[in-house]
């Protein structure tokens, strides 16, 4: 009898769950009629940059416009990206903004099949753009282009070219990820180093050909170069070994602030990275040894929202030949805490650079491609 009771309790729980599902289903709805529903694909759900992007959309934009953003869980592969898109499609979502880049071709095709607008919010991909630019549901891409990535690396290399006296450590992040390859090519060029060639183009080609960077092929006259990339079980140990050689600086094309800040701050090794203007990076710059940061800012994903919102309202912005938009955004660079602080206060979730007032200038029926391009490319870097 006791067991029967327990069984009944277990079954009751299951029934209660089912019942509540039905009840919720009855209460559920498809949202208000005019509400725009946008699904956001993300492969990072916990990073500071990802969280600030999310807060900008869900806490600022959603308050200002009649729009709902639904974020996915952490998408680790193409299958989960497509599954998420199909789920959004099944719930009659209007558009997808992608911050996940496992397989953008499949994302674009899944959106096309489902009849949902699709936009890429970061990490521009020229191959994808060329393939799908004439697709009626492809809104386009806004973010740092590959040449912007190269320029970001170049600026960092030039900044440190004279500062490196004896040795430099370089972190290649997830090379051969193209974004990191271009940054690395820029960085090596800026430092005056060679890698299978001396020009940016030659270096990019050499890195792709090697499917990575071979440390021994980096040549920087009169200086020692240590190199590390990727992240695995032994990465922290390897970085520890590099730090023990006391390099003049560690220059990273990404992720160093996430992985190695504590080690570098403690060892007193100056470092530079391309990341974003987060609270932890502010601390690293204020009391640690982070001295150079190129980064995205919270509301940098504002313009792509405007483009998607326009498309859903029937005002898809296209360039002169009828193709989707593809506009590059620059990074902001801080080399001091004061500068960093200005960036932070100038662009926050509650008071973003791309606020409603500014976004409204490019939302509407009569917005042209040229106006929109100018809007995105205008330098809005805050000044102290």
């Amino acid at each position, binding site marked *: 009898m006791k067991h029967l009771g327990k069984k009944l309790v*277990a079954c009751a729980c299951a029934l209660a769950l089912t019942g509540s599902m039905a009840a919720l289903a009855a209460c*559920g709805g498809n949202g208000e009629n005019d509400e725009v529903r946008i699904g956001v694909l993300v492969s990072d759900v916990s990073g500071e940059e990802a969280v600030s992007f999310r807060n900008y959309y869900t806490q600022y934009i959603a308050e200002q416009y009649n729009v709902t953003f639904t974020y996915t869980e952490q998408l680790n592969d*193409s*299958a989960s990206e497509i599954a998420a898109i*199909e789920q959004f499609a099944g719930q009659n979502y209007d558009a997808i903004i992608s911050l996940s*880049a*496992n397989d953008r071709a499949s994302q674009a095709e899944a959106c096309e099949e489902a009849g949902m607008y699709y936009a890429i919010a970061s990490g521009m991909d020229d191959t994808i753009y060329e393939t799908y630019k004439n697709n009626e549901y492809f809104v386009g891409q806004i973010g740092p282009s590959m040449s912007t990535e190269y320029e970001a690396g170049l600026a960092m290399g030039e900044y440190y070219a004279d500062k490196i006296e004896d040795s430099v450590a370089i972190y290649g992040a997830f090379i051969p*990820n193209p974004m990191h390859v271009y940054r690395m090519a820029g960085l090596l060029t800026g430092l005056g180093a060679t890698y299978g060639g001396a020009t940016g183009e030659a270096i990019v080609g050499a890195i792709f050909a090697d499917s990575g960077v071979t440390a021994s092929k980096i040549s920087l006259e009169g200086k020692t170069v240590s190199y590390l990339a990727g992240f695995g079980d032994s990465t922290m140990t390897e970085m520890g070994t590099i730090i023990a050689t006391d390099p003049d600086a560690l220059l990273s094309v990404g992720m160093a602030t996430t992985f190695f800040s504590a080690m570098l701050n403690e060892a007193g090794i100056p470092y530079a990275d391309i990341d974003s203007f987060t609270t932890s990076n502010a601390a690293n710059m204020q009391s640690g040894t982070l001295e150079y940061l190129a980064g995205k800012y919270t509301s940098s994903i504002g313009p792509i929202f405007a483009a998607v919102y326009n498309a859903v309202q029937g005002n898809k912005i296209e360039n002169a030949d009828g193709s989707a938009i593809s506009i590059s955004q620059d990074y902001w660079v801080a080399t001091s805490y004061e500068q960093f602080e200005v960036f932070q206060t100038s662009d926050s979730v509650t008071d973003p650079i791309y606020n409603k007032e500014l976004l409204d200038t490019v939302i509407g029926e009569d917005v042209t491609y040229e106006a929109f391009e100018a809007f995105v490319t205008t330098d809005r870097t805050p000044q102290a």
Partner: protein
Amino acid sequence: MEEVLKSRSGDAVKKQKVKNIIIMLLPIAALVVLFAVYVAIILANDYNLAINLETIVNQAIVLVLVATGAIFIFTLGSFDISLGASTLFSATVGILVFNATGSLLLLFLTCIAVAVACSLLNSVLSSVFHLPMFVMTVAMLSVLTSIAGTIITTNSTSAGANPAISVSDSVLRDILGSVDTVWFKVLILALFAVVCIFVFNFTKVGRRQKFLGGNPVCAKMTGIPLSVYGIIAFVMAGIGVGLGAAVNVTYTMSVSTGTASDIGMSVFIAIVFGGMPISGGARSRIYAAIVGGFSYIILNNILNLLLSSVDGRYGYVQIISAVLFLAIVYVASINYRVKHLPR
């Protein structure tokens, strides 16, 4: 008094039979209920039913294919933690072959061959070294993940955080797209399920597998060695993994280091949802994989729909799934314990 007892005993037997039938039908009833709830939610919200049903098939198919083959391993009371890694590895080799040849047939054959080879390696090595098969699969998980990871990283075409190999040629994408249909997937599953059900229920091999799972010591003493039937079980599982990998490639047209990463655990949960005893043995059923796989996916979708406006809903979905999983195992174990009470 004896007559009373006999009549009571007769009633007990009848009740036991009814109870057994109910227990057998419960997972199917649960699937029907879940499906009804799912459809009700879709219709109540004016969502697109066709797209949602297609989504269910797309999400469930790889899981169900892998789980169907894996039933043979679970029947033995064993567990293969490398199912996801094996799916990843076969899909990786499969997509490379497909990119090189453009042949769908070769994609499927390669995936199956690679998965079966991995399975054979698992079972043969465990037999040679006299290690529990589960232990071998733990080692295989690391080996396959590493090899696949290396291949993917060095051949990556992805701009994302995870390296990935994609089918980028539009002609090849069209070829894959031509079989990325619900009907093709259902056909593959149906064929494989029929083969598995036949082997499992109508051949000596299947019967011996079930017996072995119930009591390996007794099975050995009945001339059924675990080493031989373990190999057969892993080969069947390998075929399921291979088919799952190939279908995954036709669906996603890419393979990344994260591909199928959670499939091992999902398979385990799915077959429990389908009414399969976690200890394997005589009560193992092939349909548990199919029923459980679809139930699990539908449940997840229902929860996602209901919690779509809730922050952190994926965590809640996982928690609710886990609670249901425990409830099912608990109810099943109570049933098991009742039968063990002494007289």
